[in-house]
């Protein structure tokens, strides 16, 4: 049995953890062609082909990372119920294929910016489980030093720009990042993610207009999970064809539960954006949890619908079937992998729980960048050092 190390591939699949896979039969890069589940629907452009180039290593990678993301979100659910995570916690389980497929198609130089459902994308960009759980629990070791919380994950060195709480506000930011990429002649693109709820924000269309006008390499990705918190898309949008809403901007509708369709679409979008300007991708996806932990998720949709999607379209199940059908691993091996992942997540949680809270002085750091003498925090220059109990 060949000991295979699933190391970082040049196409930028994140390896947030080092794991030695010494159990799998074939892990080399023999190419495998996979057909996407559904054809792409295009608006003002030619859709890409349904055949996606992949490899056995990538397939196993997808499975492992998605299982990790799923496990992480479920663990966050328990932590929230145990009151270790407070405030708002928006979980991404069900939507993992979007994060994974996107990472597979791009590099760390390409920027991603998203809204508050950002845990898995942060992981995909190279964040570690320890940073995730520490930040969620407000500890020092968190990616934002415990001062941001669930909705404010950022990773500058991997061009992950967060992590934003106000619906829709990240899209103009994303177009600004794309502008900077064009200004600096970087040959990179920006993926600005938003939801079906945010798709009705005016600033989106403002930003899209500017991006199309200035030919910015911006890709707007609508993660359409069909519900804007409690409001179904047909109750919020006169035209729920979000990929067409760009009007003069081309769009592509993608099955967001199929990681390979996402990968193909993102690759296509990147090529398009670098040459011809902005494009909209609509990922047809689904979230199993409610909008956030304070939303049960069952008052505006039936349990049958949720379990139906889980049975028929679950992204991890799809990859699992592909892995098994291509004989890349046995059932038992995949189960063992999942057990390993579970342990990894539990270890990370335990380690994060041990991590200290931020120092009281951290209350006042990073309000301003020090320079030109700025040291005050209030208008009267008073740095009131609160003595925390």
């Amino acid at each position, binding site marked *: 049995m060949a000991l295979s190390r699933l190391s970082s591939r040049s196409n930028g699949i994140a390896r947030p953890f080092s794991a030695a896979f010494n159990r799998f039969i074939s892990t080399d890069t023999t190419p495998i062609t996979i057909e996407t589940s559904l054809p792409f629907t295009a608006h003002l452009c030619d859709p890409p082909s349904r055949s996606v180039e992949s490899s056995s290593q990538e397939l196993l990678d997808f499975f492992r990372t998605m299982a990790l993301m799923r496990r992480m979100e479920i663990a966050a659910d328990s932590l929230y119920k145990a009151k270790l995570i407070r405030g708002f916690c928006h979980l991404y389980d069900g939507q993992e294929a979007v994060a994974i497929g996107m990472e597979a198609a791009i590099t760390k130089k390409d*920027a991603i*910016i998203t809204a508050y459902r950002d845990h898995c994308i942060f992981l995909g960009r190279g964040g570690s489980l320890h940073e995730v759980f520490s930040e969620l629990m407000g500890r020092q070791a*968190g*990616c*934002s*030093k*415990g*001062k*941001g*919380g669930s909705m*404010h994950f*950022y*990773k*500058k060195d991997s061009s992950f*720009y*967060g*992590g*934003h*709480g*106000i619906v829709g*506000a990240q*899209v*103009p*930011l*994303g*177009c*600004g*990042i794309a*502008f*900077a*990429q*064009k*200004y*600096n002649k970087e040959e990179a693109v920006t993926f600005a993610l938003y939801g079906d709820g945010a798709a009705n924000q*005016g*600033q989106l269309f*403002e*930003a899209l*207009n*500017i991006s199309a*006008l*200035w030919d910015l390499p911006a890709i707007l990705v609508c993660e359409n999970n069909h519900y804007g918190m409690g409001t179904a898309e047909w109750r919020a949008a006169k035209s729920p064809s979000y990929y067409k809403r760009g009007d003069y901007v081309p769009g592509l509708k993608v099955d967001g539960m199929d990681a390979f369709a996402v990968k193909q679409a993102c690759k296509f979008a990147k090529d398009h954006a670098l040459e011809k300007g902005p494009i909209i991708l609509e990922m047809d996806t689904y979230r199993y949890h409610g909008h956030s932990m304070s939303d049960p998720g069952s008052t505006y949709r039936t349990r049958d619908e949720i379990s139906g999607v889980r049975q028929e379209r679950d992204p991890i199940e799809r990859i699992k079937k592909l892995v098994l059908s291509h004989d890349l691993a046995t059932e038992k091996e995949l189960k063992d992998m999942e057990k390993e992942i579970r342990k990894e997540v539990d270890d990370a949680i335990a380690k994060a729980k041990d991590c200290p809270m931020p120092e009281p002085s951290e209350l006042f*750091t*990073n*309000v*301003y*960048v020090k*320079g*030109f*003498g*700025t040291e*005050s*925090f*209030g*208008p*009267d*220059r*008073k740095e009131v050092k609160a003595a925390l109990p």
Partner: protein
Amino acid sequence: MSAILQGAGAGAAAALTPFNSIDSNKFVAPSRSSLSVRSKSYIVAGSDDGTNKSFGSSSLIARRSQPLMIPNAVTATKADTAASSTSLKSGHELLLYEALQEGLEEEMDRDPHVCVMGEDVGHYGGSYKVTKGLADKFGDLRVLDTPICENAFTGMGIGAAMTGLRPIIEGMNMGFLLLAFNQISNNCGMLHYTSGGQFTIPVVIRGPGGVGRQLGAEHSQRLESYFQSIPGIQMVACSTPYNAKGLMKAAIRSENPVILFEHVLLYNLKESIPDEEYICNLEEAEMVRPGEHITILTYSRMRYHVMQAAKTLVNKGYDPEVIDIRSLKPFDLHTIGNSVKKTHRVLIVEECMRTGGIGASLTAAINENFHDYLDAPVMCLSSQDVPTPYAGTLEEWTVVQPAQIVTAVEQLCQ
């Protein structure tokens, strides 16, 4: 000047609160002849940290024909020997908007990351000509004409700043930036904090605000009061060509987001500024006229109303100390405090509304920090809490007039 005497008839004055009423008969308008004695005036920009500032002679032109009243500056002879011995270096004369443009151009030359975005800043040259000629020199990618979408282009500027660019976002009128309040408050002010220091947002948000000449309520807003609570931003207000250029340059070089408040009526101020490069400290107040009896704190256009009132006050025997606070957030309590400790009386004259304005915060700050040094309660003259009316006479009474300042000083110095 003349407008006050024409407009403020006894009837109109009586209709207002006692605080605002003047007896127009008692009011003495400084005649031109009395000013001719002082033909050479110096504006002293005080500096405690020894930054090298040279003086420029200031001859502010009062244009009767244009709707802009700029009185001559009052002489100030500071006891600071090092400063006053500096002779007038050779300078060049220009208007305030040209000074802003010069500062902007110098910074764009110096750093290729600096870019400007706003409505009509490029080909049109800027609605107040601050960006005139820059698009021709630097191209469309560095001087960007945006469509009319403040929310989006402010957000884009902030997004670009996250990657390291240094955009200067112009609001054609500060009031329009209310549409971008979310971006300014949440993203501009807070991103450095919520990302744990990973991202800095070195943007400059600038634009003209304040009460103009009958521009109407929506175009006469003072946003300083709305933005002052946002943690993480700095606010400065320029009032002379000298400090306009200096503050513009400092704001661009600062790593923090800075909001630079300009005033619609001050763009045509003329002053001679130094040829060599200089920068004004973003957090420092400017000593306009040292004095002994009372500290008058002001900023932006009200500085000129205060200086006008100061002339009257001097004739009446008072010796006011006038400080242009310049830095609206954070306040320069060092300079202000030293002044309060000397004079023991404070009058704040601002253009913000009474409610929740810069004056309100400053009053609280002074009371909290310098209560023991005050001989009288801090008085704050602000604009009335009304939407700015169109009618000229009414508009005049929404803002503080020099006569009211004189009355207030007399009241405080009893």
